[in-house]
């Protein structure tokens, strides 16, 4: 597992700055006795300062304090690496700073992020409780196969275990945030094949010969007429 220091400080960015020293340390939010009877309490809205209507776009700063506890971050790290584990040369989610991003996200003083915070903070607590009930240890102490057994009950739309709809909603949300955070990095761009954000000179180059041959085949295969661009 990635050590705590890396989790907190991996900063995949050159320019974006966070308010540091604001990391909360403490226990997971206690919210119920055992996974079955767990409640998903509303959390107090974060009142920190937002970016405002005229921030410096060339020197972005995250002006709100980060709020996740070390324990929450540790579970998040394990979870996002199950969502996007390392594969060959492709880095795992923690290696490109996804937990730090999720911390930034759930700590933001905006409505959308507040909704996610309620889902995620409670969801992480649920995961830990569920692991204790099933495995006798918290989520991060459970081995990978035991962790995955829990995910298998909440990660697939058509196979959500009855009664686990709320955890499934939590998982869907953190998956979506993980994917978004991951594929907006340089590593994510390289993997998905995004080749833009690169200024060029002269006319727009347009599709490669390979891309054109491919689409011509697709179009003609459907019985339609291809027009070269």
């Amino acid at each position: 597992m990635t050590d705590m220091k890396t989790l907190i400080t991996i900063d995949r960015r050159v320019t974006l700055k966070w308010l540091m020293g604001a990391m909360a340390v403490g226990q997971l939010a206690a919210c119920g006795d055992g996974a079955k009877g767990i409640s998903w309490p509303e959390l107090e809205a974060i009142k920190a300062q937002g970016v405002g209507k005229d921030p410096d776009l060339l020197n972005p700063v995250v002006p709100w304090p980060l709020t996740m506890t070390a324990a929450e971050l540790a579970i998040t790290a394990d979870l996002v690496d199950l969502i996007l584990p390392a594969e060959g040369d492709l880095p795992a989610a923690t290696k490109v700073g996804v937990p730090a991003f999720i911390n930034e996200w759930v700590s933001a003083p905006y409505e959308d992020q507040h909704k996610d915070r309620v889902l995620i903070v409670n969801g992480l607590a649920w995961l830990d409780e569920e692991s204790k009930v099933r495995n006798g240890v918290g989520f991060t102490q459970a081995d990978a196969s035991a962790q995955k057994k829990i995910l298998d009950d909440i990660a697939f739309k058509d196979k959500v275990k009855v009664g686990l709809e709320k955890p499934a909603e939590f998982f869907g949300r953190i998956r979506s945030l993980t994917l978004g955070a991951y594929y907006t990095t340089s590593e994510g761009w390289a993997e998905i094949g995004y080749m833009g954000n690169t200024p060029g000179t002269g006319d727009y180059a347009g599709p490669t010969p390979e891309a054109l041959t491919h689409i011509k085949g697709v179009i003609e295969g459907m019985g339609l007429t291809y027009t070269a661009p």
Partner: protein
Amino acid sequence: MTPDDPHDAVVVGSGAGGAMAAWVLTKAGASVLMLEAGRDYNPDEAPMLSMAKDAPLRGVGSRDKEFGYFDATVDGGWDMPGEPYTMAEGSEFMWWRSRMLGGRTNHWARNSFRMGEYDFKPYTRDGLGVDWPVEYKDIAPWYDKTEKLVGVYGTNTGLENHPSSGPGVLQPPPKFRVWETFLKAGGDAVGIPVVPARRAILTKKIDERQACYWASGCGRGCGIGAAFQTTTSLIPWAKKTGKLTIATGAMVYEVLLDASGKASGVRYIDKATGTHKEAKGRVVIIAASTGETARILLNSKPNGRSEGLSNSSGQVGRNLMDTVGSNLSAYFPQLEGRPRYNEDGAMGLHAYIPFWDYGRVKSGEAGTPRGYHVEIGGSFGDPGMGVGGGLDGYGASLRGDVKRRYGARIGLTQRGEMIPNKNSFCEIDTNTKDKFGIPVLKFSFAWSEHELNQVKHFQKAMGELVDKLGGTFTSDMPEPGKAISKGGEIIHEVGTARMGKDAKDSVVNQYGKSWDVDNLYLTDGSVFVSKAHKNPTITIMALAMRSADNIATRLRTGEL
């Protein structure tokens, strides 16, 4: 000169309409004072090429920066602290503003379609709405001059009611990308045209402005000058003449009249000091944007007259229109896993679907009197925070799904004509003031069956197109009443001080000159008579150029 000196012309607003007027007048030798409520701005501060990961929350929109962190909008958006507007009961209206030099031209999408012959004479064609006091051919030369000056890429398609530009006016459009070629194949099969779009973007360098370098969203502002905004063109050019004085942070709230009933200037709040000041000119030109222009007129009460200034017709604030909008999104398995290349291009439309069904409109079979166009979006773009939408599971299979689905979705966005109706207007809310103490606008808005029927037409046509290409919509087809945008949401609001042939039912003449006050002109979208489906800004600029030309002549002859 300083803002305290009398100028030939006082121009309120520095967006599309105001900056065009200021440029034409200063070039003609007139001294111009431009009053702008927002702060000074130029796109040297635009975050071109910054990655989403360098922004808080990966750049997604928030209450503070509604169109995303990197969007150029300064001190504006749907919600402006301390500068509210209100809505009549049962009405919803969205009003996007920005408070910066250059106004909303700093971040508009640059889509620039001319209005055609039909669009200027809607009443004559179908008995709905009102005709313009001009014909297309009166405005055509001004479109040519404007497009040439601004720099617009596109082609002359020769299609019905989509007029051609003069020879040598347009810049060459960028090539279609793969998904646009794909869409065209489907369109050709079902009789829906997919043709090169027109945008106010340079593909060839002119003057100090560079050609597009095919990267960085234009909504962030274009520091190389390729995407048209007044802060890299009209305003610096006007400054170079030595005839332009700019006062930023100048919130105008009323027009001053002299004893003879002519405009002598305007009154504004200097935001830096909070003091009320007067600016004097031989002619007053208001281009504070459709809503704000109406607000200034209605808040000006010459001799205590409650109906406001230049409102003997009672039409100020009336006839508020916006573009009809609705969206569909379709997924095409045929586009899965296609070969990668750089699809950023001009970061917006290379192709679009112009309205094509005029024949069936005429015969009544189309079921809707007015047309729309379709703006299309797809591409291997920056994956963004939405990349995980609709995905399932975790681990290796998830990675595979992300890659397979990338670039296989096409968005189809309706942009349609609204017919003015009596339920859509703005007025002064006498109970609410902004932080400056200026009474605010209250909006009333309603669509009619015509717009809803148009949404139906769009949905049906797009259904045929998507079907032909083996695609599926990513969500169920919503009811037109649910699918249609809110009033103002498309940010094409126009019409609150319409032009006309007759002082009885219009506010200004065909040159934007007030019927009631001989030296008061309006040069923004407020003067529109109808809201064709074509995005308004190129027309705002062409009309502003024509108005300013008229003003320059009158200044020169001493008539003003």
